[in-house]
């Protein structure tokens, strides 16, 4: 059940939903509903459709190509977009590095990179985590040494989502080692096609390989590709993290997963009746649906009325924790709903164009791998334990 808005915002929601429903190409919709892997082409096609509508960068100021929405309109849009059976807009360009370039970039950086992000001409990836710098991000070791108009970068990054598709990486590097470890970090924009950059896939527990290790071996990066001042990268990185957290609750995605869960539970049988009529299972669905309502109501509180226009604060850590737990519960219930047909593993089924036979219902092959894959959401972007530290420190005063 969805929370009702006032008349003006119900109209806005209908308008957004009306467009998105029609705009998704049929083949993308079908594969997305089934939980198949989205290809680079799928992402770019969908982002281009949104770009032509003027909706690909809902959080950007109007002069840079944003739609000029309020924070509430943006939250409504994010939710409807997430509920649409289509790939998510890749966050690294639009919601992560984009706002940093807008806020801290040079005129030349803005003129070059921002239009290319909007048009999906550059695929961006994120160079934050390192093998020895995860939750302790400021402990990063990748070094950039000055050499005339360039830096020479050496080191490695890890967990880099879609590095295999990427044209550009925004990257935190160490340019100094004096003082606190947060000092001496700089924020570079690295061309992934540069000599010395190599990418190695990391296979995850679901059998996929969307994340990678990235290695830098004497990679030459022009100083013109540094954001702001040398040694101030931590400030820009923190600004980026605040922006990343606007759609952190992912109410839309969970709404779609809940709908799929109910569809699957209506088709599965238990005691000769649809599984969704089983009191124990339907009660578990109700529990997560009520949690999702609580989350959506909390998001609306955070973006409307007196909170409208405020930058997202530490309360977004609550949204991250609760939102991730709900997604994990939903993917787990979907996998459980399929019963034994959650077990056959058909890795080739995920690949586009594969039309072989699978055991069990058409919706089954993706369910267990998706459940396994989705354990990531309480780990990435600051684990739920780190989020609790943030709340304890910033909201509870510890």
């Amino acid at each position, binding site marked *: 059940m969805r929370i009702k808005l006032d008349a003006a915002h119900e109209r806005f929601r209908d308008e957004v939903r009306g467009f998105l429903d029609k705009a998704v190409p049929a083949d993308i919709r079908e594969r997305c509903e089934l939980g198949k892997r989205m290809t680079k082409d799928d992402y770019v096609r969908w982002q281009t459709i949104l770009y032509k509508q003027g909706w690909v960068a809902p959080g950007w100021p109007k002069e840079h190509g944003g739609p000029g929405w309020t924070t509430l309109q943006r939250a409504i849009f994010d939710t409807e977009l997430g509920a649409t059976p289509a790939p998510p807009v890749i966050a690294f360009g639009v919601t992560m590095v984009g706002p940093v370039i807008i806020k801290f970039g040079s005129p030349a950086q803005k003129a070059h990179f921002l239009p290319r992000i909007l048009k999906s001409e550059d695929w961006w990836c994120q160079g934050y985590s390192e093998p020895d710098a995860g939750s302790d991000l400021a402990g990063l070791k990748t070094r950039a040494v000055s050499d005339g108009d360039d830096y020479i970068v050496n080191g490695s990054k890890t967990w880099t989502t879609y590095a295999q598709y990427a044209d550009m990486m925004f990257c935190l590097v160490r340019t100094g080692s004096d003082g606190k470890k947060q000092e001496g970090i700089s924020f570079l924009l690295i061309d992934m096609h540069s000599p010395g950059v190599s990418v190695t896939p990391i296979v995850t527990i679901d059998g996929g390989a969307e994340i990678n290790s990235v290695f830098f071996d004497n990679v030459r990066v022009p100083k013109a590709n540094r954001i702001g001042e040398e040694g101030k990268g931590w400030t820009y990185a923190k600004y980026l993290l605040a922006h990343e957290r606007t759609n952190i609750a992912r109410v839309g995605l969970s709404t779609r997963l809940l709908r799929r869960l109910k569809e699957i539970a209506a088709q599965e049988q238990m005691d000769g009746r649809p599984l969704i009529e089983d009191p124990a299972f*339907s009660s578990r669905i109700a529990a997560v649906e*009520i949690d999702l309502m609580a989350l959506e109501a909390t998001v609306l509180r955070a973006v409307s*009325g007196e909170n409208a226009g405020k930058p997202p604060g530490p309360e977004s850590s609550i949204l991250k924790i609760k939102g991730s737990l709900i997604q994990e519960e939903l993917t787990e219930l979907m996998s459980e709903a399929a019963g034994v047909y959650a077990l056959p593993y058909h890795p080739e089924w995920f690949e586009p164009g594969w039309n072989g036979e699978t055991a069990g219902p058409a919706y089954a092959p993706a369910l267990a791998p998706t459940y396994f894959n989705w354990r990531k959401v309480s780990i990435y972007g600051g684990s739920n334990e780190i989020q609790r530290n943030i709340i*304890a420190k910033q909201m509870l005063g510890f």
Partner: protein
Amino acid sequence: MDLSFTEEQRLLAESVARFLEKEYAFEHRRAVASADPGFSRESWAQFAELGWLGIGTPEDQGGLGGGAVEHMIVMEGCGRHLVVEPYLSTVILGGGLLRRGGGSKTALLADLASGKLLLALAHGERKSRFDLAHVETSAEKSGKGFKLTGHKAVAFHAQLADRIIVSARTSGKTTDSTGITLFLVPRDAKGVTLLPYRTVDGLRAADVRLDGVTVEASAVLGAVDAGHDLVVAAVDEALVALSAEAVGAMAALFAQTREYLKTRKQFGVPIGSFQVLQHRLVDMFMALELARSTTEAAARALGDGDADYGRASAAAAKVQAGRQGRLVGQEAVQLHGGMGMTDELPIGHYFKRLTAIDTSFGNADWHQRRFAGLTAAS
């Protein structure tokens, strides 16, 4: 869209907070709850003066003409200060049923608003558990009136009430939703016997025995056979009000526990410096915020006019209040250690009230099941 309070609601919230802060200290509550009659007539008169008792009463009958959001504001204050007065029984349930029953009964709303009339609802029975359609108590035609026979279970505040709203079956089978009729019965009517007691949270309730209680036809509230829908609608409002009370109690527990973690020292440091305790406090805080969001959304949903939406939202709020309330209550006791087990501290009293709230008018499991039924189609 503005989800914050209107200016009038904000002023009401301020007045509730200011008054209870000043007049309703925990030791006052303890004294009132532990002596008969278990509430303070003086406090009740003050609530009337402040306009709280007439919030749901239409303006032309001396009330404020408010709704679920205003009731939520008062009930959150009641939760924060563990108010023992019969606000839920008299104003939310009693007032809600008088308004819905219509007819000459609405005239009583003025007495309710002025504090002269205390009401209680005697609906549940030994075998009904939380099912509002389950009524065995019978109302047989007797002359121009009715004769009521049956046993009502755990009627909150019944021993304080001037009149008790009793449901009884005028037709149909025990679990039929049609055939239930509501009667306004004076507490001292012949044939009414109360077994009064305290509940575990320090409030008052009674089992009500009806041994052939004769009432006039004019005692009927609403229409004959049509009581069920009135009760369901009034209980929906009670669910949101109880959820708001739970939010207030959770907020108090969270604040007191946070303070305790900052001041209580062990191993030479405040225990709040330990991450394992910080994270548990964060979970309490999240529980509070999520319950608050759902309660506010449900209060607005009740005023929306879409009955199914309001009903499912009220059920969702009660599930959150029940579950999160239990969690916050248990964690507050745990984080206070041995002190949390003592009667001396308010902590355990909040915990007990939150436990009672979950069980009142359907616990989290019950409303979760209802919610599943209400939303199966969507």
